[in-house]
Each structure stands twice: as structure tokens, then as C-alpha cells.
């Protein structure tokens, strides 16, 4: 009877151990799969973050680029060229920041002072403001011949790229949220860290660019036949650009930096 009982308990032990081992194996596979999925989701999350917080992009990019587009209505194709240059400028700034943050990772938080974000934003305001003023004056007062002296800065493609790059450097809260997520990617090597950071920001960029697509429609305004309306609209856009440029560079840039 005792022997039978011992045999029974031994079989039970073996069965339980086997079940546990099989379960552990299954869990390990699941965990590995989950880890890979998690990493993919973390990076894809960049696109979703951009899509869900894109209204901040409207607030950062429209004020600087919309007056520039409206101040000289040259048709759908020309408008798209400017838009593409602007988008490319943003793309470069996002990649630049993505690679930097991915590489530096945790240490970026430790060694870069918190005021860095504030100073970067204010300096980008000053630069964007100067670009807007020069282009506004160039469109409104062609007799000043600013083109000759500031050829590079008043070139259509360079200006659009510059405005896009500077708008991209404006570190808004969704951008900082994306940055903090990039730190948490946990890449094994510096090269992987750079690539994953860049990929995260590329997807974040695509998510936010969706909200900038309405800017393409500005090119269709050229088709309005009322020349008085078109001339007045462009006049208003040029002066908006000039005054906004002064506001960004002086009030949001220089005075703010002096008062700190």
C-alpha cells in the first residue's frame, strides 16, 4: 500500500515538474516575442504620438510658414516646392535631434542643463524672425533690392528650408515627450541607438506632417480671379510676415533673453 502511494506521489511530482517546465518554455518564447513586439510598438508609437499631438505642430509651424506662403501666391506647383523645402527642413532638424538624443541617451538628460531647451527655442525664434523680416521686406519693397545683398537668405528654397529647420528646432511638449521615449528604447550599441532614435523621429515627423498638409491648398488661392482680393491678401500676408518677424526676434527672442 505504502509502495503504491509513493509511486503515485512520484508520478504526480514528475507530471507537475514537466508541466512547469513546458509552461516556462512557453512563457520564455512568449516573452521573447513580446519583447520584439514591444520594441516595434515603441518605435511605431512615434507615429501615433505625432498623430495625436499634431495640433502643437499647427501652433508652432503655421505662424511662421503660412504668412510666407501667402505673401507671394505663385500657383500650385511653386507652392508645393516651397512646402516640400519646408518639410525637408523640418525632417532634417528632427533627424538631427533624433540621432543626437538616441546616441547620447540617458546622458543627455544628465549633462545638458534644463535651460538649454529654453535658449534653443529663443535663438530659433530670433533666426526665424530675421528670415521672415528679410523675405517680407523683399516681397513688399522689391525696389530695396535686398535680393542682391541677402541672396541666399531670400532664395525661395533656402528660406523655406530654413523656416522648416528652425520650426523643427522649436522643442514643443510632444517633441520632448518623443525625446524621453527615445531614451527608453534601450539599444545595445551606439549605432543601433542612433538608428532607432532616427527611426522614431522619422515616424514622429510623418505623424505630425499630416496636420501640415492643408498648407498645400494655399497654392490654389492663385486661381481666384478677383485681382483686388488677391493683391490685398498678399499685402496683408507680407506685412504680417514682417511684423511677426519683428515680434519673434525682438519680443520673444532678444527681450526675453535679456530679461532672464
Amino acid at each position: 500500500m505504502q509502495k503504491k502511494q509513493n509511486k503515485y506521489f512520484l508520478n504526480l511530482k514528475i507530471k507537475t515538474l514537466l508541466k512547469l517546465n513546458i509552461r516556462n518554455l512557453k512563457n520564455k518564447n512568449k516573452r521573447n516575442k513580446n519583447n520584439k513586439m514591444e520594441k516595434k510598438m515603441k518605435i511605431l508609437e512615434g507615429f501615433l504620438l505625432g498623430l495625436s499631438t499634431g495640433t502643437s505642430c499647427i501652433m508652432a509651424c503655421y505662424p511662421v510658414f503660412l504668412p510666407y506662403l501667402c505673401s507671394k501666391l505663385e500657383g500650385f506647383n511653386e507652392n508645393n516646392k516651397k512646402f516640400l523645402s519646408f518639410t525637408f527642413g523640418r525632417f532634417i532638424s528632427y533627424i538631427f535631434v533624433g540621432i543626437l538624443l538616441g546616441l547620447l541617451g540617458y546622458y543627455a538628460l544628465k549633462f545638458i542643463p534644463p535651460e538649454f531647451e529654453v535658449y534653443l527655442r529663443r535663438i530659433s525664434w530670433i533666426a526665424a524672425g530675421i528670415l521672415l523680416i528679410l523675405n517680407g521686406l523683399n516681397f513688399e519693397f522689391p525696389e530695396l533690392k535686398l535680393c542682391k545683398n541677402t541672396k541666399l537668405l531670400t532664395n525661395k528654397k533656402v528660406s523655406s528650408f530654413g523656416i522648416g529647420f528652425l520650426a523643427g528646432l522649436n522643442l514643443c511638449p510632444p517633441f520632448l515627450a518623443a525625446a524621453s521615449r527615445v531614451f527608453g528604447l534601450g539599444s545595445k550599441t551606439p549605432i543601433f541607438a542612433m538608428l532607432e532614435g532616427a527611426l522614431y523621429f522619422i515616424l514622429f515627423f510623418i505623424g505630425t506632417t499630416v496636420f501640415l498638409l492643408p498648407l498645400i491648398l494655399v497654392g490654389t488661392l492663385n486661381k481666384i480671379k478677383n485681382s483686388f482680393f488677391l493683391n490685398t491678401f498678399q499685402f496683408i500676408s507680407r506685412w504680417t510676415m514682417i511684423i511677426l518677424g519683428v515680434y519673434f526676434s525682438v519680443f520673444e527672442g532678444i527681450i526675453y533673453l535679456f530679461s532672464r
Partner: protein
Amino acid sequence: MKNNNKNIKSIIKSLLSTIPMFFLISFFSLYNAKGIYKISGWITVIYLSFCYFMLIWTDKISYWRRFLFILGAFCFFPSFIAMLLEKRGSMALEYKDIFLNETPFCHIVFPMVILPYLLENILIFPARLTGNYASFYSMLVIICISLLTIGRGWCSWVCFYGGWDESFSLLSKKPILKLEDNSKKFRFFNFVMLFVVILGALATFSVIYCQWFCPWKLITEYEQISNISSFFSLIMSVIIFFSIVIVLSFLTKKRVQCMSFCPFGALASILDKFSFFRVKIDDKKCISCGRCSKLCPFLSIDENSLKEKKGKIFLTCSKCGNCIDNCPTDAINYDFFLQSKHIHLKISKSLVIFSGWLLGSIIMGGFISDTIARILNFILNGSFFIH
């Protein structure tokens, strides 16, 4: 004899038109009024009703409109400043007042707060959403009603800042600095300010007009000077107030601040498309003398269109009635927006004047009554402060 009969008939007609206005103004001015406010309330009611009667009887719209508009503006600032001094002891806004959303909601702020509120559900101006007449929702209701009825007429019948501009523009007999009538730069420049403040508010999430461009801080409230930027912003207000509101208006005999600087005026011009009334020129009666174009304080009448017998009035028209008063052939009139410009209905003119006067009396009547009460208190008790 016939003339006497006509005069008596017109007086009786005007009196009958004034009676409903009298009762409405009495209701708004005397509701819950006690003590010295009852006396000042009655003075306000009698004054406003008398001016309205004279407007209807003489048919001089712009002339009598100014008695409400300019007095309202000059009574607004002592009343508002006295209320501030009674409540917080200073005109300066401290951070705790901003933090507690104790700032009255000004209508000029409206263009800046719309988009951030729609996009992020945040009111970027430190005012209450509800709770008093100067809260966001109550001002929104007042502005919507005004814009639907009189449209940009707000700028000539209701706005408690515009009277300053108008008074300085009337001081000189002839313009010392002539603005070109066809120059769109002055006529549409407030649209530039509108887009600057909207886009600037979007980019910085702050009310940039109030911080840097508002000339009215000198007669209302301003941020306490605690650093270089608040000092600069006060200096900017002083420069803009004296240069644009006083000097340029005096030199050009045009309402420069309202025409070329105020962003709310530009928004009101756009929303004027939805209002019930317009000012229209009847080309059949028009003799192209150009007097209306020269006298318009907003440069809203296109002189070229008069020569071509097409009589175009821009959307910047504030329905002040100056052109209607001075047209030698009565070719200009207030009309319903769908009405043909060759048909004049007397009722449309009466409705515009009635709406404008009533709205102006409701908004500014309180300040007029309060200032009179304070003056009476000063005479009787030696103090301008009542509470």
C-alpha cells in the same frame, strides 16, 4: 402753418419712437439701483433718452451718436479705474490676480483665444469662464448678438475705447496729414494686426496683443512691473496710445487706431458679412461728389467706384452714419443685407439706429451712471470711492 404742423407731427413721431427706448434704458440702468445710484441712473436715462429723441427728430445720426459714444468712452475709464482701486488698491495686475482668473475679459482678446480654445481646450486669457458679466461666455454672447445685429457697428455704437479715437479725430477742423483715399495700406492694416495676434498667440500660447500692443492699458490695467519685459511692455503701451490714438487721429481726422490697428475691428469686419444690415449707396441718386469718401473716418468708401457710378462700400464700414448725414442727395442709407440698394425701407434705418443705441446704452450706460454717481459722491461726501 403747414411747417408748424409738420414740426409738431415730427416731434410726436420722434417722441413715440423714444418711448420704448426710454423704458428699455430705464430697465437696464435702474434695475437694483439703490441710493446714489438711483439718482445717477435717472440722470443717465434722461440724458440717453433725450439724445436718442434728438437723433430721431433731427435725423443727424452721427452727430447725436457721438453724445453716447464719446461720453461712454470718457466715463468708462474713471469708473473702471475706481472699481480696480476699490477692489485691489492698484491698477497693476499682480500674479495672484492672474492666477485666480480675476481679469475682466476684454472683447479685443477674442480673436486670440478662439483657436487655442478649439485646439487645446484652454483659455489663454486669465478670465473666468462664467460668473459675471465680464466672463468669457457672457462676453461671447454679447459679442455674438452685437455682430449679428449691427456687425462692425460695434466700433461706432458700442466699443468703450473707440470714443477716444473719435474725439481726438474731431479736434482739428481740417486734416493736417492727408491720408490717400485709395490707399489700401491704411484701410486694411488692422487685418495685418489680426493675423499677427492670432498666429502669435498660436505660436506662444499667450495673449500677445495684451502683453505688447494694447494702448488701453493706460486707462484700464497693466501687468505689475517686475522685470525688463514688463517695463518694456508698459513703455510700448504709452508710445502706441499717444502716437496712434491721440496724435495720428488728431493729424489725419481719421480714427487711426480703430481703422488700422485694432484686431477686433478686423474680425468684426469679417463677421459683418453675417449681420442683418449694410450701408448702401443708391447709384441712381449718387452725383459722385465724393463728400462721403472724404468724410468717412474709416476710409471705407471707394472713390473710384463713385466715379464709375457703382458706389462700393468696403467691409471696414462701421455704420457710424457720417456719410448718411452728409450726402446731399440722400443716396446713402442703412438697408437689410438682401434688400436692393434702389429701395429704401425706413424700418431698416430705424432698426439699425435702435439696435446700435440700445446696445451702446446697455454696455456703456452702466459706466456713465457709475461715473455720475462717483462725481455726486465726491461733491456730497468728498470721496470718489463708494464701496
